[in-house]
């Protein structure tokens, strides 16, 4: 019997990426299981956001005589935020393409671009929040504003976490190279970042666009 030619070596399944030692009927390799588990987390995060959206939709008219959606929101700022986050989602994908080809320079370049666009988004959001609070439209003003700051602020907190994660991944790639465990983390990061953009689509539609209809 010639080893390695007729019978495949133990665990060399699914493209032979990683050895689980259990053959085809065993668990998937880590490169599948880890992103899948992270996908489940992202979906449960979306369930969390759905509760915040439901809260917002229930309270949007509870303004307590305070400012309403039409008086507070500026569509031009939201358009810039939307474009920045959308393009950052795109460049995050380009970083993944470069990382798969083990191209250090372009991976880092696209991750930097992704992070900078995320910072632009966050800066505009913080400016908007500061502006509203300065006008006396802070989260304690009315039930509508409490739910607004909870919903949009929770998304902003996710973007902040994503930015920290991007910085961490850039350092890890730089220091440790494109190891398999680093690549798994990078894939999870890209799933997280794309998911943030999906949630933002719901926010700019439900909160900002429907909120500023004439």
């Amino acid at each position, binding site marked *: 019997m010639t080893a390695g030619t007729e019978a495949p070596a133990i665990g060399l*399944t*699914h*493209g032979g*990426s990683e050895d689980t030692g259990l053959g*085809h009927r065993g668990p*998937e390799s880590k*490169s*599948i299981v*880890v*992103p*899948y588990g*992270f*996908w*489940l987390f992202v*979906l*449960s995060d*979306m*369930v969390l956001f*759905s*509760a915040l*959206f*439901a*809260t917002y*939709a*229930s309270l949007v008219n509870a303004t*307590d*005589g305070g400012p309403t959606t039409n008086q507070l929101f500026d*569509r031009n700022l939201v*358009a810039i935020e*939307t*474009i920045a986050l*959308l*393009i950052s*989602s*795109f460049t995050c*994908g*380009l970083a*993944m*393409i470069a990382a*798969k*080809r083990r191209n250090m320079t372009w991976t880092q370049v696209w991750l930097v671009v992704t992070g900078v666009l995320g910072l632009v988004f966050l800066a505009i959001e913080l400016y908007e929040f500061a502006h509203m609070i300065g006008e006396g439209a802070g989260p304690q003003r009315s039930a509508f504003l409490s739910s607004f700051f909870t919903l949009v602020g929770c998304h902003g907190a996710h973007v902040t976490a994503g930015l920290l994660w991007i910085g961490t991944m850039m350092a890890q790639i730089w220091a440790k190279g494109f190891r398999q465990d680093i690549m798994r983390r990078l*894939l999870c990061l*890209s*799933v997280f970042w*794309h*998911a943030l*953009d*999906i949630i933002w*689509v*719901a926010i*700019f*539609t*439900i909160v900002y*666009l*429907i909120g*500023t*209809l*004439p």
Partner: protein
Amino acid sequence: MTEHDPELLNVAPGQPHDSMLSETISYVIGLGLALLLTGVSFWVASTSTLWGPGVAVGLVVLAIAQMGVHLVFFLHITSGPDNTNNVLALAFGVMIVFLVMIGTIWIMAHMDANMAMDPALTNLQMQH
């Protein structure tokens, strides 16, 4: 790893394609479609040529379409057999999201309509 490999039982969400060209094209198409849908959303919200009461529904439809574009072109969620687990998890997540949102909005709107109180009582600031 490609999504056409018959040996491959599962593929991770967001997993890039094998060919650099098809992968890049996928992201470019996704970006184009997402920009188009975003632009249409902002136009629909600003124009006065459309029937007013239908605009909000139209915006929600456009948003759901854009989420679909993001899922397919950025997260590479496909209908292929190697994607079954990802799609089933997504379907369950979507079901819970709709149950929570539609259920809450439905119930709260009815409570609001059926339990209308004296406006002075619902205004918390005036109870002090």
